[in-house]
């Protein structure tokens, strides 16, 4: 019947739909542009820097004194400083983050868990400058009051406080991974007469290991990239030492301290910011991508 002639065709082109999709894709492009911008911003001055300072000198030199005459650009003291602070952060964040995750995932009742999780996140929500203040003004003097021979600026205080700050990062990613472990695995172990401790440690943790490792790697990445605590509490003295109670300068602290001063564009000091920044970016990028891969792996296995 032609009276009911179907009107299946478009009677007006839906231009709006295309425009909206385009606008949304543009929003998404901002993120891509950010990454490109970061890489471009770091690369260009870094390349110029490495035309003046050889890569070998940069990565094997044990002396960092860009403002001295003659200037020396060995980045090792900054890397060692970063690793030294990171080491103490990891010593705190890894065992306690994992312990908190096991408690939340395996031991806490649902109500307790629902209350504790966001409470733990508060730790990660405190601004880092506040932790920096605390490490410098409260924690280091406290260590001294215990009779320890601690310098005012030192890697240990900065690292420990940083580690506490990172506990929620490690705990929440590990806990996600443990939650993804199927209940049937636990039930199987209980049926064989295991107790809760054995199930947690021998079944759940190994089954969730890729997620747990990812949480450690992301925790390390955060410690390596953290600026304010290191800047305030670890100091700005680039020395090649692993002694925990000595001042060190991390890569982030160097970038911040140099960036604060109004260094002239194009000068060698200006370019060091980017060379060190590039080193930092590549280190954290490698860790982040590795962690993201691990997280995807456990998601694929269990979801």
């Amino acid at each position, binding site marked *: 019947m032609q009276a009911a002639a179907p009107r*299946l065709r478009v009677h007006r082109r839906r231009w709006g739909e295309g425009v909206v999709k385009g606008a949304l894709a543009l929003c998404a492009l901002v993120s891509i542009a950010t990454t490109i911008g970061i890489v471009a911003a770091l690369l260009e001055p870094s390349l110029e820097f490495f035309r003046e300072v050889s890569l070998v000198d940069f990565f094997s030199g044990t002396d960092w004194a860009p403002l001295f005459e003659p200037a020396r650009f060995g980045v090792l003291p900054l890397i060692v400083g970063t690793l030294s602070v990171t080491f103490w952060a990891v010593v705190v964040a890894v065992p306690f983050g994992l312990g908190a995750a096991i408690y939340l995932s395996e031991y806490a009742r649902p109500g307790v868990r629902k209350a504790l999780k966001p409470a733990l996140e508060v730790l990660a929500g405190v601004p880092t400058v506040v932790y920096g203040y605390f490490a410098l003004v409260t924690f280091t003097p406290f260590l001294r009051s215990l009779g320890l021979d601690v310098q005012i600026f030192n890697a240990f205080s900065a690292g420990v406080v940083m580690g506490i700050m990172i506990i929620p990062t490690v705990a929440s990613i590990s806990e996600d991974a443990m939650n993804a472990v199927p209940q049937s695995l636990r039930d199987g172990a209980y049926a064989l007469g295991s107790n809760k401790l054995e199930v947690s440690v021998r079944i759940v943790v190994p089954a969730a290991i890729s997620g747990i490792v990812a949480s450690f790697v992301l925790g390390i990445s955060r410690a390596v990239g953290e600026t304010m605590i290191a800047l305030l509490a670890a100091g700005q003295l680039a020395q090649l030492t692993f002694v925990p109670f000595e001042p060190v300068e991390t890569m982030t602290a160097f970038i911040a301290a140099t960036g604060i001063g109004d260094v002239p564009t194009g000068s060698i000091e200006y370019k060091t910011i980017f060379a060190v920044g590039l080193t930092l970016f590549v280190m954290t990028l490698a860790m982040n991508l590795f962690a993201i891969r691990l997280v995807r792996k456990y998601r694929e296995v269990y979801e």
Partner: protein
Amino acid sequence: MVMTAAERIPGVEVRHDAPSGPALREVVFDVEDLTVAYGGKSALSGVSLEVYKNFVTAFIGPSGCGKSTFIRCFNRMNDLIPSATVDGTILYHGEDLYGREVDPVEVRRLIGMVFQKPNPFPKSIFDNVAFGPRVLGLKDGLDDRVRHALEQAALWDEVKSRLKESALSLSGGQQQRLCIARALAVEPEVILMDEPASALDPISTTRIEDLMDELKREYTIVIVTHNMQQAARVADMTAFFSVEVDENRDARTGILVEYDVTSKIFTNPSDQRTEDYVTGRFG
């Protein structure tokens, strides 16, 4: 055959009042050799049938037979699944539903759908029914339109005093009738119902079935059901689908076994597989 299949199935009561035979009816959908695949795996293969105006047409069959996949072809809901491909033709009043010029959005405005689980929007009762007219730009006489749709869905008397309340405060059966009202409010020609009563209690189910009987005077209704008695009670035409298993390729594909007037399907099917299914020997 001494006994008809229906006499052997307790609870199945076949309608014998089927109006004038299909041959004289206007064809709404003409399906020709339809095949649907998800990500290269075919879910439904080689289906051909005609759907007639002002009839209730039921699709029955065991789970996995592709009947839900099939009904979603009529309003191009499968387009929303990126991996789905549809081959063959569906003519809607002689026009290719999957033609190049055809806009799936227009298709869905003419061919409404009600889903298995009631899915009211998290908005007020009024806003649920008014959603369709609003997106179509039909703003004049919205109140009357909403009221008319609710009346047609036999829900008006129950909700007229609480139109501003959340649709989620309604019972399951009421929610499903609200979803029917929502579909009616845009004045479609066809209403597709994908197991509309499967999540409802028996009393709500009866109400939905009565409603279908009412609505087919103005609309063409296509319904998927896993409940044979329901098909026997409400449908004029019934199509029986089955699963064909290809052991070599570990593939399962839905096929159309038999399509006929409902009484024929339930009392004197031509295919042994249909008989086995309606008598409960299989499925």
